[in-house]
């Protein structure tokens, strides 16, 4: 068990800097999800913690000890790879025992640990099979078993679920979460899937273009996104962003509508409205010309444009509303659910 500290961490490949001054404190036993679009550097960051990539500048501490120069095996970590990276010629048991064998643990101890991990993951009956005789989900379990038997201070997950089908992914997601809570091991999990990130993480680190956009709990990120990027990335469907004018708490949208916000910003702003926060209201200020309807059962997504403009808008209303297509719908929004961003810096304006 250990906490992890990232201090001013930078990674360059030649002259190209791909990670810029990453800071982060990860508490003992915390489950951190690093999330971002592909190419944002999230895997690189994880691999730096693992010791598979060198650190250009800055410092990584695990359990209060600087690990920059340590080999991966000396960092007391375990990693689960996207394609599992099981040794194809070894049985499940040998796969799980390999690291322990190298560390020269006694046979009894190895067997005890492997069987314990196999029981936790319910893969005991597969111990003597080869990886190719297992399904994707079972391989995933073996890969996790290999991490568990090492009894490490830190678990690192590199998009471990992206090779599984949707249903299995949901199931494994819950299992990983339960397992982590049960073992209480500090974990870092990399994914590009925001739903995975929201459901798994105690805290989320949103990376974009090598910068940390925001680092906070899922609810913080949802309620108070620090930047336009986070606002668009977290939440599904994505937040509506409309360039507007603000003067002392009143926001004028293009097309003439006005909403109130709990701030006193002035001038050009980027107004953010979550589709699920738009409440149907015949006298509401926001009006949408609905062009297309997506019925999801529990709720209905209304796609259209802000009346009188070309701004694409999405609203999510509870229940069924099949007849909305081609009509105009009006919505209101509570002032404290209004997000305001600076159009230049793309940073959040309201507290």
């Amino acid at each position, binding site marked *: 068990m250990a906490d992890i500290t990232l201090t001013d961490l930078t990674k360059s490949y030649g002259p190209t800097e791909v990670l810029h001054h990453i800071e982060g404190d990860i508490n003992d036993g915390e489950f951190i999800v690093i999330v971002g679009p592909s190419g944002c550097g999230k895997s690189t960051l994880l691999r730096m913690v*693992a*010791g*598979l990539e060198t650190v250009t500048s800055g410092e990584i501490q695990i359990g209060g000890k600087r690990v920059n120069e340590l*080999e*991966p*095996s000396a960092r007391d*970590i*375990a*990693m689960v*790879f*996207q*394609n599992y*990276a099981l*040794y*194809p*010629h070894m049985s499940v048991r040998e796969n799980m025992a*390999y*690291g322990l064998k*190298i*560390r020269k643990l006694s046979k009894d101890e190895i067997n005890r640990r492997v069987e314990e991990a196999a029981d936790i993951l319910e893969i005991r009956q597969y111990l003597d099979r080869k990886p190719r005789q297992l399904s994707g989900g079972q391989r995933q379990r073996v890969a996790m078993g290999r991490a568990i038997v090492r009894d490490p201070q830190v678990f690192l997950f590199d998009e471990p679920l992206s090779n599984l089908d949707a249903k299995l992914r949901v199931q494994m997601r819950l299992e990983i979460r339960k397992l982590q809570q049960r073992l209480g091991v500090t974990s870092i999990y990399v994914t590009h899937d925001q739903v995975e990130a929201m459901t798994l993480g105690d805290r989320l680190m949103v990376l974009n273009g090598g910068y940390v956009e925001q680092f906070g709990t899922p609810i913080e990120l949802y309620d108070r996104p620090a930047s336009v990027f986070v606002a668009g990335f977290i939440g599904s469907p994505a937040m509506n962003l409309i360039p507007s004018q603000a003067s002392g708490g009143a926001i004028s949208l293009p097309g003439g509508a006005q909403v109130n916000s709990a701030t006193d910003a002035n001038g050009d702003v980027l107004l953010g409205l979550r589709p699920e926060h738009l409440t149907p209201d015949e006298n509401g200020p926001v009006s949408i010309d609905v062009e297309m309807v997506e019925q999801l059962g529990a709720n209905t997504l209304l796609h259209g444009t802000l009346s009188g403009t070309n701004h694409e808008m999405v609203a999510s209303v509870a229940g069924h509303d099949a007849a909305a297509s081609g009509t105009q719908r009006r919505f209101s929004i509570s002032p404290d659910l209004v997000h305001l961003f600076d159009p230049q810096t793309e940073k959040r304006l309201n507290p």
Partner: protein
Amino acid sequence: MVENRPLADFITHLVLVLGVVAIALPIWITFVAASHDEIRMAQAPLPLWPGDQLWVNLKQTLFGEGLSGTETAPVWLMLFNSLFMALMISLGKIGISLLSAFAIVYFKFPFRMACFWMIFITLMLPVEVRILPTFEVVANLGMLNSYWGLSIPLIASATATFMFRQVFLTVPDEMLESARIDGAGPMRFFWDILLPLSRTNIAALFVILFIFGWNQYLWPLLITTDTSMTTIVMSIKQMLEAAEQSPQWNIIMMTALLAMIPPIFVVISMQKLFVQGLTETDK
């Protein structure tokens, strides 16, 4: 192809049968000749059906004096020499090329690609091209008439190095990373992960290289003057011209038959791995 075209079937079978006959007939004649006595083989017409002297000839060839009136080594020794040389060449080639491919793929060192291309360029220098300088080197090292002299000049292999390089390149990087996290050092990774993963490729290469080594003719002919070091392939040719007498076809053919057996044994016993090694791409 699932088609029902009798004429096409007939033609394909005809071609196949002709091919088999073309390959098998000389072997049959060798076998027949090896089973008659010397006198019958000197008479015309040549026999087409086996005689009853197979065991007598076998005994005489393997353990007797071989060809009468010459000073050749007994054929069992030649078989042993050939086998030893072929094994040294094939195992040596595999060992060296595995290690050099491992170095080229997994280690970063200055002039890595230059080293690779230097190895690759030796493809253009088979032993026949460099035979004089190589002979000079081997002679100066005092390796004439020795197993080392027979095998070492043939032991480096650009083809095998290249092949193992390609095999190693198909092993996912995660395998190495995973081994590093497990704490395996480079040689440990080589032994525990890479070698088992290239098992079928090693087998396929072994078959090819064993036959290559077994069939060496020019090089052994050049550096072995001592009859106790002769290999079986070169001795067959010598037997034809041995002593001023008509060739003893029964003995020569028996020797030829014996020379064919080890390569056939290797091919048949490793056939399954051989095919896997050349076709399987899944790692």
